[in-house]
């Protein structure tokens, strides 16, 4: 991936906005007893749109910012969001998913991974207080709440990054396969085109 200053600037703006919005607004609104997590969804969206390297770097940056601003143990959120960003990007590069609900599914898996991963790391670092089973319920509720906002968040990130994104070579190939010479095109259209030319 070549360095793209325009894309980098736009991702940086998105990262700062996501963290500020999360902490000043989203974290303070409770829906069904849980709060949404737009930082994870933003990293997921950047990974799906810009690829694994951009996703991993964005995950690292957003995670670091969250940990620094909220006086958390620095590095924990970065570690989780790097995985989310990289994995989302690899999914785009390897599977090239085109279904409209992919951000919803990937967002749900990413949120679940972040919730469980945070719990595991906290346990590894040592928690003196007892941990309630309701934490699992909270993780599931957060996954559901994030499912509700995954598509809007993805669409906002896509619109913001759209002009700066490099043209996807797979999309170019798909476009080439569906020209008038392509066997994928419907026969009626080909014949129609041929008749039009003979007249």
């Amino acid at each position: 991936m070549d360095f793209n200053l325009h894309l980098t600037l736009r991702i940086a703006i998105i990262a700062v906005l996501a963290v500020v919005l999360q902490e000043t607004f989203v974290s303070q609104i409770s829906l069904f007893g849980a709060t949404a997590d737009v930082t994870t969804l933003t990293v997921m969206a950047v990974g799906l749109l810009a690829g694994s390297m951009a996703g991993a770097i964005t995950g690292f940056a957003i995670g670091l910012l969250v940990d620094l601003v909220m006086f958390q143990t620095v590095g924990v959120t970065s570690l989780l969001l790097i995985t989310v960003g990289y994995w989302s990007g690899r999914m785009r590069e390897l599977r090239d998913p085109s279904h409209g609900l992919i951000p919803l599914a990937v967002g749900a898996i990413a949120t679940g991974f972040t919730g469980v991963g945070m719990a595991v790391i906290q346990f590894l670092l040592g928690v003196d207080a007892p941990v309630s089973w309701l934490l699992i319920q909270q993780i599931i509720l957060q996954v559901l709440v994030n499912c509700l906002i995954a598509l809007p968040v993805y669409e906002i990130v896509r619109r913001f990054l759209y002009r700066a994104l490099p043209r996807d070579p797979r999309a170019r190939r798909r476009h080439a396969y569906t020209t008038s010479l392509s066997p994928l095109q419907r026969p009626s259209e080909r014949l129609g085109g041929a008749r039009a030319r003979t007249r």
Partner: protein
Amino acid sequence: MHDKTIRRRRAVLALLVVISLALLTDYFGGSSSGPLHSVQQGISTVLSPLQSGASTVLSPFRDAANYVGSTFKAQSELQTARDKYNALVKQYAKIAYEGEQYRKIAATVGLDNKYGIGNYDPLYATLIGADPVLWYDTITLDKGSDSGVRQYDPVVAGAGLIGDVTRVTHTTSVVSLITSPNFAIGASIENQSGAAGLIQPQVGDLGVLELINLPPDSNVSDGQLVVTNDLRDAKNPTVQSYAPAGIPIGTVSSTNPQSSLLENRSERVTPLADLQHLSVVQILRRRNN
């Protein structure tokens, strides 16, 4: 070319993971005055005006969203509230009379000084940031050391204690909530035994606290009020709050059957403060050391 791209991608990933692990190790093992903590202080100071501004700008939207959420919740809570109201009205008449008597006596014998509340200077602060993870660790307030806030100042909201200040910058302070795994505080039950123990959270459950280390003869029953006592444990970094004695924390919600007459008891406590809907809180600033 393709191999080079793969190698570069893997190298970047490995580098990011190594940096994260290094930061985590350094932060977790280092002292609270280490360079990473200083960077955190600096970043928080720089970003606090942005947080404060964004919080103010977004407050109408936040209030609107919370209003909608509260409406659904309010329907189910209405009947419970009515029952409680009727019970409380009866209690109020009795307590109002006793309170009047108490004020007269307190003014005479100086109970304010005994409880130490006179040594605190309340300061209203607005919430400008909340922890995005599910561990309900911390919130950020818009008042810092410039306003006289100091580390371990207790913080109250609405009905009771919500936590204490663990980090302070010039313009902001970070509060560890009573549901944080890094928070514990000495507490007593307001009954005849006055049994004292330690309040600690049930991580992940905002509605439950644990009152542990109660003496076996505590004589606890449901609904009894749990308040702070002025216990501080210099050896335990989680029990550092300067909360004065007598601040309500919650009520006993269920009592555990006692397995042995020699073993200490532990009871479940429901916090009085609503930690999910905080907006304005009160920091009890200490006037002296």
